[in-house]
């Protein structure tokens, strides 16, 4: 394969083709009830090392998770947090990708929602009227 030549056309794939930049990054993520969870701050791809070409015949890299939390800072300003610090929304939990990314699970079970839960339980729920339904 000539490294400077045009890329060979990609093999036909089943299903939809998603452009990570266009369809995933910076999209709003909603949970199964339609409640906003976060925005897709970054994505995690398995089987891909930055700057290292993929050897022919290796299994195709796969998208494993949407990332959120401090990873937004490192995406903008550079660097990478240790893998243990990444807050992941597993790709298998994603139900649909449209103008929003819809999850098939509820936000309450996700690590991505822990700050929201903390603020809710420690601050907002303790202010009188915090559970009042405005409608």
């Amino acid at each position, binding site marked *: 394969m000539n490294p400077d030549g045009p890329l060979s056309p990609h093999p036909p794939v089943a299903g939809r083709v998603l452009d990570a930049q266009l369809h995933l990054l910076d999209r709003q993520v909603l949970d199964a009830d339609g409640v906003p969870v976060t925005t897709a701050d970054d994505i995690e791809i398995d089987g891909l090392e930055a700057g290292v070409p993929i050897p022919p015949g290796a299994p195709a890299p796969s998208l494993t998770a949407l990332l959120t939390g401090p990873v937004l800072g490192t*995406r*903008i300003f550079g660097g990478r947090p240790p893998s243990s610090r990444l807050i992941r929304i597993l790709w298998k939990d994603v139900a649909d990708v449209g103008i929003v990314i819809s999850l098939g699970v509820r936000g309450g079970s996700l690590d991505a929602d822990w700050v929201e839960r903390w*603020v*809710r339980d420690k601050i*907002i*729920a303790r202010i009188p009227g915090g559970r009042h339904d405005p409608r």
Partner: protein
Amino acid sequence: MKKLLGLALGVLTAIGGFVDIGDLVTNAVVGSRFGLSLVWVVLVGVVGICLFANMSGRVAAASGRATFEVIRERLGARAGLANLGASFFINLMTVTAELGGIALALQLASSVQYLLWIPVAVVAVWIVIWRVRFAIMENVAGLLGLCLVVFAVALFLLKPDWANLAGQALAPAVPGSETGAGYWYYAVALFGAAMTPYEVFFFSSGAVEEGWSVKDLGQARSNVLVGFPLGGLLSVSIAACAAVVLLPAGVAVTSLSQVVLPVAEGGGKLALAFVIVGILAATFGAALETTLSSGYTLAQFFGWSWGKFRRPVQAARFHLSMILCLVVGVGVLATGVDPVLVTEYSVVFSAIALPLTYLPVLIVANDPQYMGHHVNKRPVNVLAMIYLVIILAASVAAIPLMIITGAGS
């Protein structure tokens, strides 16, 4: 019948909600220094805000996405964050100015020093945001804001030289006592006051709050297209009152009491009472809108759960961020900084930030994935492109003009 009532209510709310402390102060300052020679700017600004508020409402109704979600998606994380920083900072400045405006209006009514009213103002604003339904909040403030019509009434009672006023408005010229740079500085400020970005954040998020669908677009459009121009007329009558009374007397407006002076002179005590209620309602309504807008922009950028239609516990970070914004606003006012001065700076900074908000809205309004067949029609796009040029020019010119004129002094 019910539909007609809804329409009337929407229009009246839009009129009352159009004017905020920025419009009040800037129009009075301009009227007292430049007469009606800058009325054309209000006209340009009103057409612009109609155009883009309508567009952002349409995006929200067709796609369910509010403006700042769209901004981040289209600009990406980096430019989106820079945009958030600028928009949020200006919004916070406007929150501060509106809170100060409430306190100043209460001072006018009570003669109690405004600093003592600030805690009252901020607690009242927070309770409404915490507790009151979105529709009630919007309608009450908007309807009471209609009391500002008394500026137009006072103008008639003052029996001005109409030919002279019309001459100033139709053949704009820089008054002899002012410089050209000062004239253009206030042109930019007026434009910024009419097109403040928070109106678009609030309008599009409000569309989501009230669950608009494509069916509601017609009513939304008439609210904007009738209400905002009538609101613009209120702005012009504020400037005209100042031009009739304060300009000949050589008084350049630096405080809220000078803004209402012509009304008191034209209409007496009763008119003064109305105008104070009107200013109170307008600044209170705008304080609600700007505080909510701070929460909306942050929540939409980071993807948090937001909205007054949810219980506060279901939008915890959204409510916490608004509480913090109000605390910061009070902190700034507690330094004793003049709220009128904060207002004057906030409208100019708004003008600087205009392209950041309006460009992404225009891009998404043309994206069929979001809009389906509700994408912009060609005439709308042509007009919007013309406005982008004006907006860019105002944005680029704002800082140099600010430096040359020493912020208009």
